């Protein structure tokens, strides 16, 4: 807690020592690396038609959430996240290490509010029949809401479940606010480590894209991708995003802390920066991304993994920014995993660490030519997250 680091010292170096991914492409680093290299994409065009979603690949929750009672206390987004968090702790080699987990900081980026669709529909139907009395809503809610559902709806209860299931208790903070929350979770965790306020942190997010209540929120402004799947760069005529299900967590720690316990780095997390363009006039997002790039300290040939959504006008603004980086490997995670809101940026960080640890960039998956083939070992990867409505962020992930 008390920081004794001299005030003039260099920032503490931070390593990514663990990643946990559970997505529409599977779980764990090997499954993801195979799927990415085989250009596999998992979309469901019928279950939520006309909306397209990227459904979670089957996972065995028991492996990370052994108590059925715990699983029952969670809705899907919390199970996905608790599962992915467990994978990250395993990957970092700290699972079950009470000494470390009890002082590990945690920042989770979360949405929440998973609804009971049947209860909601029942109430609206009673209304529709003209049976609505002043007490009807109360009566229905009192009779039909499950008490545990509230806990599955609270945003901070993903972190709460990670504490209960995995014992991460040093601190527990939940950021909300769509895509930007995922950027800020990484940004604040890194800033605290760099300044000596923290030694080791678990950061990440989870998203259940197979939810009609969430589709509804984005349908209000016609953001949902409909009818036909296209890669994220080929949606100008039919813009939007396909919601995706995913959990993505990382263990980030100071180099000294990792070395003291003999942990190997997957990559270095060099910097994370964020901005909040007002987006009142065209070009603000492009300018914001240019500004962030200049703060990042990346080399001009750094590869790029972006969470570009396919929504407009933000995707076109990002494409304008990417024109300055036309000869590097650019990979859009929106094509591969769908849009996972809070999770998209941690997912990008995880994929960047994975690519660096495997010494290669995964192949392009794009019909427009924006993503190009690039061989050779990536030494720097920039992760970009420009939110569908607000929030811009960037991170620099490097080979150690």
């Amino acid at each position: 807690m008390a920081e004794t680091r001299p005030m003039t010292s260099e920032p503490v170096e931070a390593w990514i020592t663990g990643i946990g991914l559970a997505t529409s492409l599977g779980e764990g680093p090997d499954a993801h690396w195979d799927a990415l290299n085989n250009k596999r994409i998992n979309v469901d065009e019928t279950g939520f038609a006309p909306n397209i979603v990227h459904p979670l690949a089957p996972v065995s929750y028991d492996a990370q959430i052994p108590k059925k009672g715990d699983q029952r206390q969670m809705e899907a987004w919390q199970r996905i996240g608790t599962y992915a968090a467990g994978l990250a702790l395993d990957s970092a080699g700290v699972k079950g290490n009470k000494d470390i987990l009890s002082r590990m900081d945690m920042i989770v980026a979360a949405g929440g509010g998973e609804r009971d669709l049947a209860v909601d529909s029942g109430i609206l139907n009673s209304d529709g029949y003209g049976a609505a009395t002043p007490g009807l809503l109360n009566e229905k809610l009192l009779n039909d809401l499950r008490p545990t559902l509230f806990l599955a709806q609270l945003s901070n209860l993903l972190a709460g479940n990670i504490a209960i299931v995995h014992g991460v208790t040093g601190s527990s903070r939940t950021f909300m606010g769509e895509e930007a929350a995922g950027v800020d979770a990484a940004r604040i965790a890194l800033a605290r480590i760099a300044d000596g306020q923290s030694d080791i942190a678990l950061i990440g997010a989870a998203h259940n894209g197979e939810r009609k209540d969430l589709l509804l929120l984005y349908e209000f402004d016609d953001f949902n991708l409909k009818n036909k799947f296209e890669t994220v760069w080929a949606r100008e005529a039919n813009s939007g995003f396909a919601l995706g299900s995913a959990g993505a967590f990382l263990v980030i720690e100071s180099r000294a802390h990792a070395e003291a316990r003999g942990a190997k780095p997957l990559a270095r997390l060099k910097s994370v920066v964020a901005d909040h363009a007002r987006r009142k006039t065209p070009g603000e997002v492009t300018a914001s991304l240019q500004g962030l790039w200049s703060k990042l300290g990346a080399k001009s040939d750094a590869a790029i993994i972006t969470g570009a959504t396919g929504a407009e006008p933000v995707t076109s603004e990002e494409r304008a920014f990417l024109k300055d980086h036309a000869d590097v490997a650019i990979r859009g995670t929106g094509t591969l995993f769908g849009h996972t809101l809070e999770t998209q940026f941690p997912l990008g960080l995880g994929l960047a660490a994975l690519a660096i640890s495997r010494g290669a960039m995964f192949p392009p998956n794009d019909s427009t030519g924006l993503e190009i083939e690039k061989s050779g070992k990536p030494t720097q990867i920039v992760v970009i997250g420009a939110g569908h409505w607000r929030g811009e962020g960037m991170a620099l992930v490097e080979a150690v």
Partner: protein
Amino acid sequence: MTATRDKFGRPIVVVTGMGVATSLGAGKEDNWAKLTAGESGIRTITRFPTDGMKTTMAGTIDFVPVEPFSSTDLSEKLGELVTEEAIAQANIGSKGDFPGPLFLAVAPVEVEWPQRQVLAKAAGANSDINYDTLLRVAGGGKFVQYHRRFLFGSVADHLADTFGTKGSPISLSTACASGATAIQLGVEAIRRGEADAALCVATDGSVNPEALIRFSLLSALSTHNDPPQKAVRPFAKNRDGFVMAEGAGALVLESLEAATARGAKILGIVAGCGELADSFHRTRSSPDGKPIIGCVNNALVDAGLTSDQIDYINAHGTGTPENDKMEYLGISSVFGERAKEIPVSSNKSMVGHTLSAAGAVEAVFSLLTLEHQRIPPTINYDVPDPAIPFDVVPNTARDARVTAVMSNSFGFGGQNASLILTGEPV
């Protein structure tokens, strides 16, 4: 080492502006007068029908009109109100140009019943309404405002726009500790030297039928409906739950160096912040009290103080049987015999539990306690609980010498956060 840094070499973080709104009223002056007079803001709910509900009272804020009502709209208006007050007092930056980041504690956001019902009506059907029906009518531009409104980041987005805060605004939830966490994030940013100033706001306008029913289904709420003013009874033997309430608090934090340089009046110091998560249960504290003890100790260590140097505790004090018992266990473990002597009062006895806002609302009240050297009481303390032998400052405010206050916040999901506020640098 200069006088603008603490004993650990970090920039000292001061408060130069505060704003508050609760069921007692708007603004510091009104709130402080009523708080020290022992008035309750809890009243019978008139905002919506409470037929069938076990709990029919709350600390609603009815003097800020929101039509049609949504909790997120009310949260936003309250956040704006208290931020205006805080920035005006700090006299920092210029209109719409606050020179630092925003940290906002806000309740989780979702589409609410009035909006769902509007959609169902728009569907034109009166049977077989389900989410597919709603989805069919939601698009096409008629309800764009609902997208803007019910994004989790929407309140922060609005406040960042209105007050011109810098960088990416952070919306956060640590349940009932959220307000304290917002302040902690601001303190950390200033200590890291990232910012000279930070705007920390916490707001909650959650009294709607579903929220009331959700807490009620967890058996967390008092059902002492009549008279409502007597419902919240922290630390009393006949306490029977907390009472939902609305409110907001805002603090302008600055480094002492920056505040001094611009000649700002310093209202107090945020000397330390502590946190520790509990892995015992989703809604209950670990029976051994260790997470609470650890959290309180972390705050003391962070401030570089010992428990002897704290002379007032602004308790979490919700009035639930469980919370108050655990808070006594935690405090008595750290403070030893002094736990029976040190004044420990609960603002919630008067304003109710302002949930996401509580940590900031109570930080403002703690700073007012330092300023006025007067401790607000715990009201409705008529039946002492022998298992909790705190000096709760029963029923009547008390003048006292107060130099350092500990303000505690504990929440569902194992959230614990403590702040230490002082009048002078320590």
